[in-house]
């Protein structure tokens, strides 16, 4: 049986997902990422999975056929660090600087529970901590950015709560629309998001909460891990023999920390990359660094390589401040960073560092395309750019067995384009998420809401 394509197009005009038993994209150029490019081939999707892929794959009789002549099929893009699908995240920013008492309070995420309502007097009050929070439990399927991002070719996001020092645990989610949050989750938890600023507060000085400085945040994190180790010890002893032993107090902050198998640490400058790699080693935690603005500096790549630490590079390339005082003289380093930041991915690739790119507040397809293109123009091979948005993030989060490439048995996340991905003129034709077909929405003007701009994780000024 063969359903006429025109009829299908009519059915999906409203961009709602179709659920035929199987879909076959045929005669398309297939960029598998994990294997060689298939110049003309077929991908068959069934029950949300890739059933077959190859140059000589037969189209099953029950499959809806998508004619791929002149089109290119890629694995769906993965945002390696995102807030897509997180309620209220669009309004928050982690750009709070926690510096010399200059920060203004930023509105906290409305849907996220506040860690503490009263002023923290020290680590024991567990300030700015919602380590137990799981993104998988908080997904808001109605987040409008899901559709926008999908229209740019993103089918998956590793999304995190980002408010606070221990913000909570991420989840790998598929960017479906109109489905239950539970259906969107691919893997959870994906790691603990840590920042070095409270995302608010008053810099600590005038009546502010602990911690009010970067060194305060570091001391707090160190204390938390000491406490967690001690807590575990006591709990185990109590579990072995509770008789005659005072029952340990349940601490959800420590529970959340203990169940996080990896942590995300902010590091933009070379100095911070060095600092955070050392810190992760001290804490004996598997760490993923995010930000990585100065990873264009060869010393940074060396450090990352030596530590074998994966890194998430922000696509939010630094730009000259629009409202800067023209009298201000910027340092050579600042100018150099703006000039060279986008060459970081190319350098990291050359150094053999596992890295992924992440949206960092960009969600408009055009902005994302331009940002990736900038890295390509700065020397990153096109296939490496693609890998940094597909298989590499999947590897970093341990889901490369189900996501990140076009392989038999993996999740049916694809993006089908006319023209090469990341090119200015390229149009995304279809997006498949869990085998469900979407067409890109017309690009809407920016709503003004920007996700976490990691401009200053840990005071990067």
């Amino acid at each position, binding site marked *: 049986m063969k359903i006429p394509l025109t009829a299908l197009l009519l059915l999906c005009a409203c961009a709602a997902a179709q659920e035929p038993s199987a879909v076959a994209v045929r005669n398309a150029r297939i960029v598998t990422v994990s294997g060689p490019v298939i110049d003309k081939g077929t991908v068959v999707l069934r029950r949300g999975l890739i059933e077959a892929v190859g140059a000589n794959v037969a189209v099953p009789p029950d499959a809806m056929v998508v004619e791929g002549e002149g089109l290119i099929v890629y694995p769906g893009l993965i945002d390696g660090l995102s807030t897509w699908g997180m309620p209220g995240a669009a309004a928050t920013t982690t750009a709070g600087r926690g510096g010399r008492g200059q920060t203004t309070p930023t509105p906290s995420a409305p849907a996220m529970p506040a860690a503490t309502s009263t002023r923290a007097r020290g680590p024991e009050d567990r300030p700015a901590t919602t380590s137990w929070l799981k993104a998988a439990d908080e997904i808001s399927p109605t987040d409008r950015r899901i559709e926008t991002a999908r229209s740019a070719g993103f089918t998956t996001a590793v999304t995190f709560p980002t408010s606070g020092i221990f913000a909570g645990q991420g989840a790998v989610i598929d960017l479906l629309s109109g489905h239950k949050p539970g259906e969107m989750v691919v893997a959870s938890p994906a790691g603990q998001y840590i920042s070095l600023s409270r995302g608010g507060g008053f810099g600590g000085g*005038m009546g502010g909460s602990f911690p009010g400085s970067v*060194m*305060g945040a*570091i001391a707090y994190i160190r204390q938390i891990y000491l406490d967690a180790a001690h807590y575990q*010890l006591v709990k185990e002893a109590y579990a072995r023999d509770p008789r005659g032993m005072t029952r340990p107090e349940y601490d959800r902050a420590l529970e959340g920390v203990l169940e996080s198998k990896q942590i995300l640490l902010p590091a933009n400058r070379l100095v911070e990359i060095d600092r955070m790699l050392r810190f992760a080693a001290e804490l004996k935690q598997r760490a993923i660094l995010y930000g990585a603005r100065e990873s264009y500096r060869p010393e940074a790549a060396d450090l990352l390589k030596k530590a074998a630490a994966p890194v998430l590079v922000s696509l939010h390339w630094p730009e000259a401040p629009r409202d800067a005082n023209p009298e201000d003289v910027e340092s*050579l380093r600042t100018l150099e960073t703006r000039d060279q930041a986008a060459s970081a991915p190319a350098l990291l690739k050359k150094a053999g560092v596992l890295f992924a790119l992440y949206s960092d507040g960009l969600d408009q397809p055009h902005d994302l395309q331009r940002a990736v293109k900038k890295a390509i123009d700065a020397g990153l091979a096109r296939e490496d750019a693609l890998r940094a948005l597909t298989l590499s993030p999947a590897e970093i989060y341990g889901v490369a067995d189900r996501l990140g490439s076009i392989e038999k048995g993996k999740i049916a996340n694809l993006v089908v384009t006319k023209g090469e991905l990341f090119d200015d003129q390229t149009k995304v034709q279809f997006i498949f998420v869990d085998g469900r077909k979407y067409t890109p929405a017309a690009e809407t003007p920016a709503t003004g809401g920007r996700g976490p701009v990691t401009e200053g994780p840990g005071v990067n000024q």
Partner: protein
Amino acid sequence: MTKLKICRRDRSLTVAARNRRQSRDPQGAVGALLLAASIAIAPLSAQTTVIRNATIMTVTKGTLKGSIVVKDGKIAEVGEKVMEPAGAKVIDAGGQYVIPGIIDCHSHIAVDGSVNEGSVSVSSMVDIKDVINPEDIAIFRALAGGVTTANILHGSANAIGGQTLVLKMRWGKDAQGLIFEGAMPGIKFALGENPKRAGNPQGGRGATVVAEARYPATRMGIEDTIRQAFNEAKAYKAEWDTYNAKVAGGEHLIPPRKDLKLEPLKEILEGKRYIHAHCYRADEILMLIRVADDYGFKIRTFQHVLEGYKVAKEIAAHGAGASTFSDWFNFKVEAIDAIPYNAAIMQKYGVVVSMNSDDAELMRHLNTEAGKAMRYGGVSETEALAMVTLNPAKQLGIDNRVGSIETGKDADLVIYDKYPLSDFAKVQKVLIDGNLYFDRDQDVTGRAARQAEKQKLLDKEKQNQQRQQPPRRPGA
């Protein structure tokens, strides 16, 4: 000055000769030559430097005209005539002066983010070591002002502040590379207005946030805060001591919870950490001495200590050092009684006195701050110089390594073109561990190139901005 130079010259010569004998004599004179020659061929020879024809102000061994041999980062020989190893790099300092690297006992440079964890009155859990910024340009500028070592302190917003550490100004090294190896860690205490006003909405200038006031808001409260903290620390120490004793006795126990706030205080009680206490008034200085006596610990230095001259005897009796400003006064109410004779008077009573900067700018000319002690109080040239070299080294417990030009000490040396305690003196070269970290000629000649590089980047950015079209919004 000349008198000093003449009478001390011979002594340092003999010392140099003795050292030479001790280190090389087993093989005799020929052996020494052979050894020197073999070193010259080895790659280590690159680390051998001779500073020639300089006026050398050693601080501990007088002033002489002569040369310094630097080998493997250490001062190998100082004297009128020295054995110049073959292949050594020669710096001709004819007509110039060499002093030991300047040491600043109170600085806040090279710190990322706030230097204050101002949210709590006891912030001993935070550590400057965690936020060293080796790329802070203030390091280079301090270096250009002859500073080779600095004590980097937490701010003064807390009765008990954060942990501190000593850095060498090894510009270009990473954070770990700056740390003065083996120097005793410290902690900042602060008395008086700063800790009582910080976190106090009524007292803090520019406080617009309606928030709970932080205790304490008075000098009485500061004393109480410190006593409370040490009560806790003593109990904490006892808990650990008991645990350690039981474990040593073969028992298997769950260790007590490690508390990062109390750990450094425990170290203070164990004599493993220096206290650098910010203070101004005589009464608060006496208060802290009494608290220290009650709890059985020592104050290593009083910082700023502008009324120190009133209680110099007590400071000396406690065994504390004093690190003060030369002539700052009246910048706040508790600095009203400050006098420029403070340093000289405290010194006269036997206090080890240093001049500090507390400031990235002042840090660049601590040599003239030392000179002021000669003008106010009439200390000798050597004593004045010691206030920014040997004395801060003693206060930081690193005088076995730095602070004077002596055989065996680190080759942290500053070459000035003119008399170093004068306003007209400019730093020409700075060596740390025998390596050249600052060279004025190099810096001056490199300026044009750096400016050009910067202009190139600025032009490029401007061009890009002009070329860049406004982002297209299909569908909009």
